[in-house]
């Protein structure tokens, strides 16, 4: 018997989007497969690595841990929504400080970093490190990511 799919509506990066989703689908699957926004990555599927970080109704969440149906009517921001015509100040800072190496954790780092900046949670380096501790990076040792975040906070790139 085919599973009854559920209609889902939400605002994604400022645009109204709909999808018919499996009741057990994760928000991550809907973002990647139904909306085709593959910038959001799956690194572990258990909320440890943060590669699937997105901003859902103003909260930073791991999209792999959120049932898609729970996002009904929500406003969602993904890495694809961070840049306008130009890169965002944080993206620009990542580029200049070398915050991205392999690039796989980068979308989640940028989304988490954007959320930290918008909630004024980057008072100093210790706060920046604490704020980013839900996002794992295996390439950088975090120094250049932290530097990019601090630079973006001060309006430098």
């Amino acid at each position, binding site marked *: 018997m085919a599973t009854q799919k559920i209609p889902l509506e939400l605002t994604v990066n400022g645009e109204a989007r709909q999808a018919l989703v499996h009741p057990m689908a994760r928000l991550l699957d809907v973002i990647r497969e139904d909306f085709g*926004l593959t*910038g959001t990555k799956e690194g572990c599927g258990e909320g440890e690595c943060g590669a699937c970080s997105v901003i859902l109704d103003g909260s930073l969440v791991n999209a792999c841990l959120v049932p898609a149906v729970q996002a009904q009517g929500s406003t969602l921001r993904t890495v694809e929504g961070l*840049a306008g015509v130009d890169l965002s100040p944080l993206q620009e800072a990542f580029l200049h400080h*070398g915050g*991205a190496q392999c690039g796989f954790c*980068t979308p989640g780092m940028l989304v988490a970093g954007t959320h930290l900046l918008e909630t004024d949670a980057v008072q100093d380096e210790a706060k920046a490190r604490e704020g980013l501790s839900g996002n*794992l*990076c*295996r390439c950088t040792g975090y120094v250049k990511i932290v530097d990019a975040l601090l630079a973006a906070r001060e309006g430098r790139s």
Partner: protein
Amino acid sequence: MKDYAHIGRSVLRREGRAKLTGAALFTDDLKIEGLLYGATVRSREPRGRIKGIHFEEGFPWEEFIIVTARDIPGKNVVAHLQQDQPCLADGVINHAEEAIVLLAHPDPLRVQDARARVRVDVEPLPTVLSIEESLACDPVIWGQDNVFKTILITKGDPDGARVKGHFQLEATYRTGAQEQLYIEPNAMIGEATAEGVLVRGSMQCPYYVHHALHEMFHLPLEKIRVVQVETGGGFGGKEDYPSMLACHVALLSWKAGGRPVKIAYDREEDMACTTKRHPSRTRIRSAFGADGTLLALDVELILDGGAYMTLSPVVLSRAAIHASGPYRCSNLRVHAQALATNTPPHGAFRGFGAPQSLFAIERHMDEAAQHLGLDPAELRRRNLLHTGDAMATGQIMRDEVDLVALMDRALTEIRYAEKRASYPTLNAGDDPVKRGVGFSVFMHGGGFTGSAESTLNSVVALEGTAGGRVRVLAASTEMGQGANTVFTQVAAEALQAPVDLIEVVPPDTALVPNSGPTVASRTTQVVGKLVLDAGLAMRKTLLEAGLLADGDVAAAIRTYVARHGALRTESRYQKPDFVEWDDATYRGDAYATYAWACYAADLRVDLVTYETQVADFVAVQEVGRVLNPTLAAGQIEGGVAQGIGWGLNEEVIWRQGSMANHQMSNYLMATAADLPRIRVFFEERPYAYGPGGAKGLGELPMDGPASALLNGVQHALGLVPRQVPLTPEVLMDLVEGA
């Protein structure tokens, strides 16, 4: 140093924008029509005989593509150094998580459901699950004696010199397995028919994958095409394993009549079944003179290679050559063996054997210093190699490097003398948090060992386009380390052209020559030199055609291509004249050059929680000319973080030959909050045979942190830790047993 237009500058990462906007497409991001999803049925037992494969009755198996060893058109091997590893287990199981059956279906959920409905009956056989059991040959599980490879390096009279020493020390050091933990799990897509095989995916070495597919399919080389897709980290973990995964997806597609098949491992499968750093056991017996002179070293090094040979002999080679560290020693024996056990094969991981043997010697030096009543810095000062000294293999150290000065710079940066003196007094108080400062001095050989670079015979090509651009054609992959950017800088420098003129072509075996695998800190040093030479050749061609009068390289290329139809230059590896190596005796120039370093750590050991925290970390290294300071520092910082993890927290827990903690929630990798700011300093001494003077540097930072940290723990507690990771549990046992 020579002033360059592009070399030595922090040119921005070429693919940076794509990676920052989510536009960069990794393997699992590719949208492919008619895709089937693959899954792997694996063994639970570490060793046994396959008695039968049962597919649950009543399940619609006709919807699935099913592949077993019998479906393999050519040889059932994953070709590496030796053809001992099957692509799919046939009759016997030699390790837990060994692949037995492959399944594919259009619905990814259905294929996962089906995997659980295949039962493999295995008659268990006795196992070998540790170095000790393997040595005892109880039972023999590989060859005649469980030994993949033995290496012996000798110099002088180590036994005689040891007896004459004023002071002798014997100690055994152990290191654990380590998961590479690239954040992108392994993923591959295959399309295969008798007309041709195309495999695309996450990998370090497209031509390794090409070779493996060729051996398994028995198809002509030109019918096999391998394309590297954006790769989310490798660290060695995508050096040999992708050959296995490529064979699996291609086999499924072959059986499915050429429909594309993807296997993207989830994290648990990736951690459970792919390669890890070789666990090791190293016994060092040393003798010193009364003045602290190192008189003799006798090193017995053993690596646990897992169930199949894969790359173990070459990992062993690097471990053996680095085993005596950066020290002068006239009387030396290094006896090194890689042994078989019934665990998944251990493989390449940044450092490739050197971290294991350097950990042992650098811990040993601090132990010896304590016994001799010398400061560890003073003991090293008396024994470090100088230019012109002979290394373990008899190689004369040509690098003009002052290791004492390198060490002193690191010690000054960490404020070693002051902390060394003041911490014991501070630690005598009631505060359960004890302080320690420790360091290590070490080196890492750049490129393949011995004559292997000549055997690889790498080629790079540069192509001018009709539009006046330059394409760099090499099989060397970008996996985050910065190959795209460094090649761009080097090519632009050679051509005296702007960097925007250069495009590094994504590796595709149908387009790029074989510039060798992307491993062994060779990409910048060796392949970068080929890019430089091909660039210089192209500039010469343009000059000789009289097209560079006004210096406009793009216009010159356009004109040349319009006149001649094409512009292509190639460069092939030529070993530096002085390099001589004898693989039979292990004598000669093991590496054309080495990168050198001293790392120092200031740490806090909490005797309530037994956690060790790194408060400050200084990394000073000499890596030739630094081509791109931002990228180079990023490599060092990342490598140090991995080294700290290996030293303190990253423990692979084995249960019956399987990794029990194969999740990110119970295999503990450091977060930003767990690490200090890693402070990186470069000494720059241009290396004559590297592009713009560069040496390889990617693996170096993995070699030093663990011993520096444990040396700091020795300083803090007065105990002698001899194994990594030094988890709180291990440290508690050590403290309570003292």
